[in-house]
């Protein structure tokens, strides 16, 4: 017995116009439908990538929590965390850019959180990267305490 042939569902234009299969318009219409299907597939793919990025982000948050709770974390562990945060930050910016270009994607409907939530996660990693490369002098910190919190060291 021959293997079953996968059934390709008819697209809306194919159903609505009921075009004869030997006409040029039928083939053109099939191409249009194919492009529509591939674009829809690309959107689903982007949603999947976003979901995976969020898993990476959650993993980094666990690492951060462990570092915060450790009494004397190793410098290597901190360096590894900061390097990973920099990579995931870069990927997050890329994901955001792609999502912005495909703005009609219903991220909240698909993943339960929206563009602004993802943007906020990416911003947090941006903070981590900046803070990792920044050294605060005691004078600067004292000035900030004085001017923002109104106290002297």
């Amino acid at each position, binding site marked *: 017995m021959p293997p079953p042939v996968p059934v390709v569902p008819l697209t809306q234009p194919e159903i609505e116009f009921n075009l004869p299969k030997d006409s040029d318009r039928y083939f053109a219409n099939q191409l249009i439908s194919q492009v529509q299907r591939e674009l829809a597939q690309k959107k689903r793919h982007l949603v999947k990538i976003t979901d995976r990025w969020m898993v990476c982000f959650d993993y980094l948050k666990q690492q951060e929590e462990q570092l915060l709770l450790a009494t004397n974390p190793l410098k290597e562990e901190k360096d590894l965390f900061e390097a990973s945060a920099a990579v995931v930050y870069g990927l997050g910016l890329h994901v955001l850019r792609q999502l912005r270009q495909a703005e009609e994607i219903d991220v909240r409907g698909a993943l339960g959180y929206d563009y602004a*939530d993802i943007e906020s996660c990416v911003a947090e990693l941006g903070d981590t990267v900046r803070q990792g490369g920044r050294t605060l002098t005691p004078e600067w910190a004292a000035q900030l305490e004085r001017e923002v919190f109104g106290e002297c060291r």
Partner: protein
Amino acid sequence: MNADEKRRHLLTLLYDWKTAPENERAAAKRLLDAALDEARKDTPFSREDIKDYLMAEHYKQYFVQRKRSENAGMH
């Protein structure tokens, strides 16, 4: 609000943002940003400056205390 209360208020909002569930992160960030803007008013410091200061000088201690009290509350 004295200096300690001000700092604690910002640390609480920072913690709430950093530990918020994914679908509440944007809202938590809006609250933090508003409080940072209020704190930095009439000073030469940016939101980032205040966050960096809090993270470098106070957040670790606050985080450990907060986790400890959350865990104690659970038992």
